[in-house]
């Protein structure tokens, strides 16, 4: 057993040692502060923008067996391949690119489509029963239902019983809408006009899920309803858009009755060409009076 006196001696000794250490430590800190406070120099220039890097052209593997062959392979798709490693981890540059892509994806989800853009496209705006992005993301059911103002506005402003009702929705990527609608929408309209198909009044639906098209179909009484909607962003592009098209959609109908054209963006299907393709699909749906798996394209 250690008696009280011994214990006190030990503690005093330990405290004395600690004191000594902290003295040394404080002098170290002081020395370090001397250097850091010495001078801040401001350099000209900027940190390169990691999002400017074309990942098809970036090959970072050290001592490759056949760099050329791997590089050629990379040209087929913008995948994160051949980006090397630092120990078990990503290298700095790919790591930053990865985080930049992730941020762009989050921005695409959380930002709104610019109202000026919607106005310039000549669209009026309505909203689903969601009143914020948070509600939109947590309550998919509300994203499939229009609010009362929306129902009223559509009844008031849209041509009723059109052959084709087209509308635009933000979905999970506002960036996709901004990037593609300007080419896709007029290309669909022109294609349908050249087939002699008339189109209803297009509009914009905020906080919309794909399923909202069913209610819109019921309100307008359209033969074919087509929504152009932002896709859930990935790390390759945040600007990919889809078109979901259905013949006489009704609330509660099976998902299999929708025809979809996805991957519409500048690196995927060229938006204007996609629009022309969608117009043809709509024509086929009208001719066959069927969509989704009921229609063999």
């Amino acid at each position, binding site marked *: 057993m250690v008696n009280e006196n011994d214990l006190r001696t030990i503690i005093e000794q330990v405290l004395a040692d600690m004191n000594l250490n902290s003295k040394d430590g404080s002098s170290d800190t002081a020395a370090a502060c001397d250097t850091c406070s010495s001078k801040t120099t401001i350099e000209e220039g900027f940190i390169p923008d990691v999002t400017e890097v074309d990942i098809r052209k970036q090959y970072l593997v050290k001592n490759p067996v*056949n760099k*050329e*062959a791997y590089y*050629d392979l990379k040209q087929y798709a913008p995948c994160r391949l051949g980006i090397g490693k630092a120990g078990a981890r990503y290298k700095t540059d790919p790591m930053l690119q990865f985080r930049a892509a992730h941020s762009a994806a989050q921005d695409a989800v959380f930002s709104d489509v610019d109202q000026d853009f919607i106005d310039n496209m000549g669209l009026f705006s309505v909203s689903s029963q969601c009143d914020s992005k948070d509600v939109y993301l947590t309550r998919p059911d509300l994203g499939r239902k229009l609010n009362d103002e929306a129902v009223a506005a559509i009844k008031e402003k849209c041509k009723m019983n059109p052959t084709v009702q087209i509308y635009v929705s933000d979905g999970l990527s506002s960036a996709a809408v901004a990037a593609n609608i*300007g*080419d*896709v929408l*007029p*290309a669909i309209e*022109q*294609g349908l*006009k*050249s087939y002699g198909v008339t189109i209803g009044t297009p509009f914009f639906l905020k906080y919309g899920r794909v399923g909202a098209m069913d209610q819109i179909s019921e309100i307008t009484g359209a033969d074919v309803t087509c929504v152009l909607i932002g896709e859930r962003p990935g790390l390759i592009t945040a600007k990919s858009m889809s078109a979901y098209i259905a013949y006489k959609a009704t609330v509660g109908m099976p998902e299999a009755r929708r025809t*979809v*054209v*996805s*991957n519409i963006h*500048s690196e*995927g*299907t*060229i*938006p*204007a*060409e*996609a*629009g*022309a*393709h969608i*117009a*043809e699909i709509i024509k086929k749906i009208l001719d066959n009076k069927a969509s989704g798996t009921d229609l063999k*394209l």
Partner: protein
Amino acid sequence: MHETILSVGIDIGTSTTQLIFSRLTIENLATSYTVPRISIVKKEVIYRSDIYFTPLLSQTEIDAAAVKEIIRSEYQKSGIRPGDLQTGAVIITGETARKQNANSVLSTLSDMAGDFVVATAGPDLESVLSAKGAGADKISQDNREVVGNIDIGGGTSNIAFFQKGILRGTCCLDIGGRLIKVENNRITYLFPSIQKLAALHQIQIQVGDTADQNKLSRICDLMAQQLAMAIHLEEPDAFHKELYTNQGNLLPSSPTLQGITYSGGVADCIYTEKPGDVFQFGDIGILLGRAVKRYPAFSKIRVYPAAETIRATVVGAGTHTTNVSGSTISYASSRLPIKNIPVLKISAEEEQEPGLLQKALQDRLPIYETDGAMEQVAIALTGEYHTSFSQIQDLAKAIIAGAGSVLATSYPLILVIENDIAKVLGNALNYMLERKKDVICIDGIHAGDGDYIDIGEPVAAGRVVPVVTKTLIFNS
């Protein structure tokens, strides 16, 4: 989705005439959630004819009736009727293409060989087809190398080379196994350039001479040397340029060749030793094969086995002439198929600026007039510079403004584009022309100025059309 197209290849060469049938499988490679991407996924040769000596009436005339009889009997043997075919090519190659009646033979056969079969020839095309038949393009692509093919036939040697599967150049020179013919141990035929080549190296030779194997072997060595020069394994000498068919061009010297395949009738004598009399075929083919095999310069590069040797050209003609267009296109189906349409290619510079494009069309379309009447013509563009909707409208306006002379005829307006914009451009044109004019607007096809194009009837539920682009029918 699977669909097959039946294709025929008929090759009437200097020494042999052959036919093959092949089956091309087309498939949509895209998922059903995206825009279709229909490609040829498989090419199989399903019937190979016997190999016939090309029947000639004289040194300058093909025996059309006999050729026709050969083809007719092969159709019968195979059980395939002309009506079963969707595509293919009849090709007159090598020295035969220079015969007086080559063109009329082609048209006779073209009519018999099916509804959509093209008649074509030309040494550049032959070089490409034989190299593809031999598989040099595939070896080059698979091994990421620069690989060439020398198709040594009776009258010409056709060379094409590829870098990573992409064509880098072609040439054709008058080196072949039947440029000297031997019968009963006497020389019965001698091609003038070969006589001259021999004379330059102090070897005198004439028709009627006894066939001296040593002397002919030395001439074959000289011919092998010329081939080595043609693929830049040796520096070309002063005479070399004279051997090019129709004053054609030399092969580009870069990229440097790494491997080679041999095809054509002589190739069999390179890859394998032919036993028996060296003049068993009545020509110097066996000697030429041996000469190429032993010529030292050729050992500098790797020799690959060819997928086809004597049949390389016909297999190439039957399986590698047809492409399919892009899968989003616009066409007036009542107008298809169309054949032998000359291509007017707009330069990149002219294409970028609508004003220049309009002017280029206005300036150059009159070339396709015959006696003041406009003939059919296909306008070719890259489509790289107009991809947004509003740019497409500008492009369509410029085309309509520039192609007034085509619009005034009863012919359709035909556009052939590389980049994937044909459907939206076709829609824009149809819209602006109020569908009063038939428009055929296809993409995924590269065509050059002076090429001819054939567009077949739609396949794959009307999504794509088979397309054959050809270089000039005949180099005169």
